[in-house]
């Protein structure tokens, strides 16, 4: 699904990504973990087609990356919900924005079209259990509800690739686990490809079939993870070992 070959990127003179190689096969997941400022968000922006002028090659779904791709759903570090739109309107924008580019303006919002759209929105709202909050504004929601709404917007357009940036960082322990499980369920049920950035080793192990440990502007190590989708206890020896391996790589990356 994602194929990255010697990718490099600079903001002005500051080189923030160099020589990155990464493969994410279709319908698999990848968790990216690394110290603050190492270039995780930049990598995600590039994959989302938001940053141009990178070096190297990036293929998404077999084709060279060329701008924003309709089937990619992303959630940025703060959710990116528009404060002047209700949850329902925010989700509708996901559909509307993609529609526009496909259809001539005169055909856009026909009546039955609106009904289909509303049905789709209702479906994701139910799926994510935020139907009751459909008419609220983002500022009226809790952190977890906001993230659900953001996920709903990323899902509503039948995405096949999801790019998530620290979507559980600001949540309490229970909500965090609930969101992680929700993502896992949706990913498995719909056969989605997922890249998720996180600061939590546990989350990386729970959500990533591959765990990509980054250091300043580089990939330090890619770890195949047998514990993807399983809630493990630290008392499990092998799990604890993996945890320590990731931790060690993180620390080593931090030092340099």
């Amino acid at each position, binding site marked *: 699904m994602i194929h990255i070959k010697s990718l490099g990127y600079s903001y002005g003179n500051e080189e923030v990504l160099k020589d990155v190689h990464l493969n994410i096969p279709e319908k698999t997941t990848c968790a990216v973990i690394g110290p603050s400022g190492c270039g995780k968000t930049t990598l995600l922006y590039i994959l989302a087609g938001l940053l141009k002028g990178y070096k190297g090659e990036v293929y998404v779904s077999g084709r060279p990356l060329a701008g924003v791709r309709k089937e990619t759903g992303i959630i940025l570090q703060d959710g990116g919900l528009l404060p002047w739109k209700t949850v329902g309107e925010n989700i509708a924008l*996901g559909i509307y924005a993609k529609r526009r*580019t496909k259809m001539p303006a005169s055909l856009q919002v026909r009546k039955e079209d609106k009904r289909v759209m509303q049905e789709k929105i209702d479906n994701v709202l139910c799926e994510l259990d935020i139907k009751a909050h459909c008419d609220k504004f983002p500022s009226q929601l809790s952190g977890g509800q906001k993230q659900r709404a953001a996920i709903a917007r990323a899902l509503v357009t039948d995405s096949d690739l999801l790019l998530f940036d620290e979507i559980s960082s600001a949540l309490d322990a229970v909500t965090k686990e609930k969101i992680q499980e929700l993502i896992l369920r949706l990913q498995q049920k719909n056969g989605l490809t997922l890249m998720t950035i996180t600061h939590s080793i546990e989350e990386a192990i729970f959500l990533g079939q591959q765990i990509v440990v980054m250091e300043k502007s580089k990939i330090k190590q890619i770890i195949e993870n047998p514990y993807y989708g399983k809630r493990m206890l630290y008392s499990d020896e092998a799990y604890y070992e993996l945890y320590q391996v990731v931790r060690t790589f993180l620390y080593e990356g931090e030092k340099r």
Partner: protein
Amino acid sequence: MKGLRRVVQSKTLHGFLILLVIWELTHQLLHSNIVPNPIATGVVFVRLMSQELLWHMGASLLRIGVAIVIAMLIGIPLGLWTGSSKRADAVFSPVVYVLYPLPKIAFLPVFMLLFGLGNVSKIILVVTIIVFQILLGTRDGVKEIPKELYYAVKALGSDQWTMYRHLIIPAVLPKMISSLRISVGIGLSALFFSENYAASYGIGYFIMDAWAVMKYKEMFAGILALGIMSFLLFKAIDLLEKRLCSWMFISQ
């Protein structure tokens, strides 16, 4: 009964009462007909309203209204453009910075020479004064949109139109409305000034005319009318804000 209680308890009314008390006190202290008492002024005001005062108010409202619309039609697109294009900003902003503080009022004779003594030169004067306010307010509003929000909407696959319609314009509306408020304030003062010259209609003309013949009650009735106009304009902007930016007023 309920309606009456609402009026009595209205904060707006309390504010006006305080204003009237200060006015009355000033009148008592000065002990001069230069500041007539509020009640006598009110009587004159009511009488004049059924005569020519309403026309003067209408003429001024029309001028300021047209000026605001024109200034918005020029200032908003330019503001959106300079806000979203670095190159446009680099070309335009220095020009704006030079023109903004120039005393446009000093150019009134030039405008009158070019555009005649009538409405056009007065409207153009007000436009040149407030257009920069609106332009800069809009531009800064665009610049203040968080990068993440911009990326989030862009990543949905939005085209240029969707970006403006759903992100940029709603994001700058609050700032645009603030600059509109400031514009009404300075626009009215500028209009008042311009109506002192070669005018036979307009609230500025009315006030200064009454002053010239020392009819102080008439003059104060005119000032009262100007205050009412200003109040109505600001109220209209408040209403506009409540309608367009309703999301800012939800109780949290």
